[in-house]
């Protein structure tokens, strides 16, 4: 009963994250929705490792790795967004055809 509730919450956060990632016109908002997706996946991992694997905790350890990788890509993503903003003064995704000039 408890397992299914948390899995439903994780699926809900995941679908909100996918919707926001596809329909965001702003690169920083896309980064935020990507963090939401990774957190939803982490909830799944930790819940399964609590219910099925209390003695070796493989899901917990993998979720720590996912948190570390998410920190890495947030840092690199914000560095890339900052340099794009310095070059072009605008971060709207649908204006990226300006590279053709």
């Amino acid at each position, binding site marked *: 009963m408890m*397992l*299914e509730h*948390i899995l*439903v*919450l994780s*699926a809900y*956060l*995941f*679908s*909100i994250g*996918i*919707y*926001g990632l*596809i*329909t965001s016109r*702003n690169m*920083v*908002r896309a*980064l*935020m929705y990507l*963090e*939401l997706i990774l*957190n939803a996946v*982490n*909830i799944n991992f*930790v*819940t399964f*490792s*609590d*219910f*099925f694997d*209390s*003695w*070796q*905790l*493989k899901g*917990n*350890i993998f*979720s*720590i*790795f996912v*948190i*570390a*990788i*998410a*920190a*890495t*890509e*947030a*840092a*690199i993503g*914000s*560095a*890339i*967004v*900052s340099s794009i*903003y*310095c070059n072009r*003064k*605008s971060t709207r995704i649908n204006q990226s055809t300006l590279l053709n000039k």
Partner: protein
Amino acid sequence: MVLLTNPIYSALSLGLVLVCISLFYILSNSHFVAAAQLFIYVGAINVLILFAVMFMNGSEYYKDFNLWTIGNGLTSLVCTSILVSLITTILDTSWYRIIWTTRSNQIIEQDLLSNSQQIGIHLAIDFFLPFEFISIILLVALIGAIVVDRQ
């Protein structure tokens, strides 16, 4: 979070979501991951995202009117279909049969250890190689972010 127009409000609501997810981890008897989430996600990544939001020019966001285009509607349809299929899959799986068939090889000493000690044991013995690779990746990412930001 999707419906807020100001990106600073959106970033603060992301922080609130991350804190609430950390409370779910405490509920799942994994206190180390809860503390790691609170420190790393809320304390570092959310602050980084707030820096990135505030670094951008704030005046161009109020022209970002929330048009409900055809792409938005199609994406919402696809996302609700993904959500409905996931929920039906979750509710149709008999979880208690799986728990009953995997209840085996219980190590007696591990019940007396706390969760962070168990994770420490498994990280140092079973998963030592991914641990070293993650630290190398973090080092490389740090150097890369500094190099990108120098121009």
